[in-house]
């Protein structure tokens, strides 16, 4: 069985490494895009099983994208992991309070990102 993962980040370097890292799991089908608006568009046609969403992006940031996602899809919205460089306990709590499934710290380890994501799908 394949799990669809959508990775959203405006930084090319991080996005490309993330896609390579996620594809280390042969059961992941991965798509990536560089903005929240693009992500909302993709999700209308290609429903992911999980979204990795960067917090700090120009234009629509991660939390705003998340709110649009919930407004549009309600309870059927895919689970979201926020990706952020600044991780303090209070940050994690605020993202979980928003409704995120979890938080991934950046920079991530390219060799273990797919395992980290997998653990949120089980």
């Amino acid at each position, binding site marked *: 069985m394949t799990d669809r993962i959508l990775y959203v980040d405006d*930084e090319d*370097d991080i996005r*490309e490494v993330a896609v*390579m890292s996620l594809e*280390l799991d042969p059961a992941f089908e991965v798509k990536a895009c560089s903005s929240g608006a693009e992500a909302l568009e993709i999700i209308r046609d290609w429903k992911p099983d999980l979204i990795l969403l960067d917090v700090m992006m120009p234009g629509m940031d991660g939390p705003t994208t998340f709110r649009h996602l919930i407004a549009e899809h309600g309870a059927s919205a895919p689970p979201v992991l926020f990706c952020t*460089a*600044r991780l303090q306990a209070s940050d994690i709590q605020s993202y979980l309070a928003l409704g995120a499934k979890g938080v991934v710290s*950046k*920079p991530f380890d*390219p060799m273990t990102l797919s395992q980290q994501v997998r653990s949120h799908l089980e």
Partner: protein
Amino acid sequence: MTGWDDKMSGLRQRFIDRTAADRALLGDGIRRDRGELELIAHRISGSAGMFGFVELGTAAEELEEAIRNLCDESTLEKHVMRLDAEIDRIQPR
């Protein structure tokens, strides 16, 4: 993993080249524009560790944090100089 390693190596080199361009901006006196400085620091802090440049990532993160905490000019200068030195360390000789 050869294909993976080759691709990572290419991305790592691109990161080094981009960071060299960022360093030129630091030297152009952009340090007066805290918004631009924060963007540069944010980009580096989120990526450097993935390519094994841990010290560079830490220097960028500390600069980003100092800007967010509205640090004074001498503190800012100290963090910019440290970031500049760490960028210099990863450039090929």
